[in-house]
């Protein structure tokens, strides 16, 4: 029995690990980064060795969420398979790989070519990430104990490049009901960069830093107008305002938020004035608000709750109640505080009154697809996985068509 390597190939990070060893899961940034001050290229997880991460130049293999540049991706995969990270020999492994939804057929052929002809994996299974999420124990997210997976579920994948809402009926996605919103973590970071550059300091080149700021400070507000009016209040009454100390890359390499003093007031600048402070006021919640109201930035698309509603409405009416009751949100942006409560409230307003609306977020939304694939590969010693795999022999005989037939395409 060959080992199975699981690669959740996202546009921001690759979640890679061996199925038989859940601790081997590692997150590798899916980019080659050139440091201006370090003057070298960091491939994948070498970014952790980077000392000075100001003005980093990112080269991403993904363009608009689809993998176009295999030259870069091959370098990153070589690093992942090398001795420094996972230490695997592709010829002795099966591969479970995730691809974006609605991947183009000519790109899927490239995937297959690289997997079977370049790396020569023994067998592989390529599918969309929400399908891998489905193999997890979803009822436990709602506190239920149930032996079988739910018949129907809606997986909302809020990722880096875009957000996909994928309803599943009997474990099969409903292609006509899959909805996409072109908003993801990348757009939120870029928007925060622009906002901060306009209001405070020029951060247009500091993607890594602003990403840290976004992850530290941003949250999803339940009542936007109330929070906006709180922001206008003076700092003593304004509980939202936060001060983020920017790193200066000589003494301090990581920024942090200054906690409030005991009486609740802000610390403000210290006497020696060596620190640069970024004040985060309404940016804290207006940036994630873009996920719910894309029209804030002029995008003619629905927000996440409305898109979930549209997606469920496009499904079989008999299944809609089941779909509303099993909504799972995965992806990096689900880590934002207040996300679940907001989606629950908004979706409750859209959904018909007779249906129950249950929304849940797993404790680790980024790893959920990986752990679903790990479950698939290890349950019954991988018997369920065996009939889904396409072996290298089959590929060499039939070509990419056999992959299209066996994996399906969404």
């Amino acid at each position, binding site marked *: 029995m060959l080992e199975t390597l699981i690669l959740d190939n996202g546009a921001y990070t690759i979640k890679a690990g061996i199925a038989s060893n859940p601790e081997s899961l590692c997150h590798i940034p899916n980019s080659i980064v050139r440091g201006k001050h370090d003057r070298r290229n960091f491939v994948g997880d070498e970014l952790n060795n980077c000392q000075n991460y100001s003005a980093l130049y990112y080269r991403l293999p993904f363009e608009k969420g689809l993998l*176009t540049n*295999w*030259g870069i991706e091959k370098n990153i995969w070589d690093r992942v*398979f090398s001795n420094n990270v996972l230490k695997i*020999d592709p010829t002795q492994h099966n591969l479970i790989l995730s691809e974006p939804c609605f991947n183009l057929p000519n790109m899927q052929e490239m995937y297959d070519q690289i997997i079977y002809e*370049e*790396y020569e994996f023994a067998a592989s299974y390529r599918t969309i990430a929400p399908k891998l999420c489905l193999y997890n124990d979803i009822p436990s997210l709602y506190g239920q104990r149930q032996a079988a997976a739910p018949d129907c579920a809606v997986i909302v994948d809020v990722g880096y490049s875009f957000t996909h809402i994928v309803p599943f009926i009997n474990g099969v996605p409903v292609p006509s009901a899959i909805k996409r919103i072109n908003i993801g973590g990348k757009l939120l970071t870029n928007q925060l960069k622009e906002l901060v550059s306009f209001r405070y300091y020029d951060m247009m080149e500091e993607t890594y830093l602003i990403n840290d700021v976004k992850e530290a400070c941003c949250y999803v507000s339940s009542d936007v107008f109330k929070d906006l009016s709180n922001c206008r209040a003076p700092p003593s009454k304004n509980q939202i305002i936060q001060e983020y100390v920017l790193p200066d890359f000589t003494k301090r390499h990581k920024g942090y938020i200054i906690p409030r003093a005991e009486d609740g007031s802000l610390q403000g600048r210290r006497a020696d004035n060596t620190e640069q402070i970024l004040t985060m006021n309404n940016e804290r919640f207006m940036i994630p608000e873009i996920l719910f109201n894309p029209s804030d930035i002029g995008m003619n698309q629905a927000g996440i709750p409305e898109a979930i509603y549209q997606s469920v409405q496009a499904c079989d009416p008999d299944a809609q109640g089941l779909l509303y009751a099993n909504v799972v949100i995965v992806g990096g942006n689900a880590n934002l505080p207040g996300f679940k409560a907001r989606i629950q409230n908004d979706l409750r307003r859209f959904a018909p009154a007779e249906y129950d609306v249950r929304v849940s977020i797993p404790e680790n939304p980024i790893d959920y697809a990986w752990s679903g694939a790990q479950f698939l590969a290890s349950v019954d010693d991988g018997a369920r996985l065996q009939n889904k795999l396409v072996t290298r022999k089959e590929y060499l005989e039939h070509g990419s068509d056999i992959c299209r037939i066996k994996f399906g395409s969404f």
Partner: protein
Amino acid sequence: APKRNTRRAAVATPSRGKTASVTPSIQESSSRSTTPQSVDSFSVQQMNLLQVPRPFKNKNYSAPKKARSLKQLLAQEKQPDFDVDLPTYQNIESPPSIRPTKKYCDITGLDAKYTDPKTGLRYHNAEVYQFIKGLGVSSVQAYLGSRNAAVVLK
């Protein structure tokens, strides 16, 4: 490092054809010698420069595939990669029909077997013809205009 498939073809011998073997061929030659060792001997080893080992080259090197940008891939998606003549829903074309045109009565819309020689109106039966006989010029032009057959004076 993972084992890499060198997809370069096997080293090609020159296609001029006389030396077709894969292994380096040793040929007798009475021409000038090329190696110092064979100064005294009459047989000289001819080298096939394509097969000479090149230790400085990286065996695992494969030339990078050209990376098509997303715009190019989307354009390629729109074009068909099969034969242009293959009928699909987007391109079913047929030559114009050679059947005689079906004529309909200008007044009633039923089948018109007859044509009034004076006005050119097509009619269904004698009853319709009696009606046509009583029409004024402007009405006749109006009926003819409904099938774009009216006389237009420029």
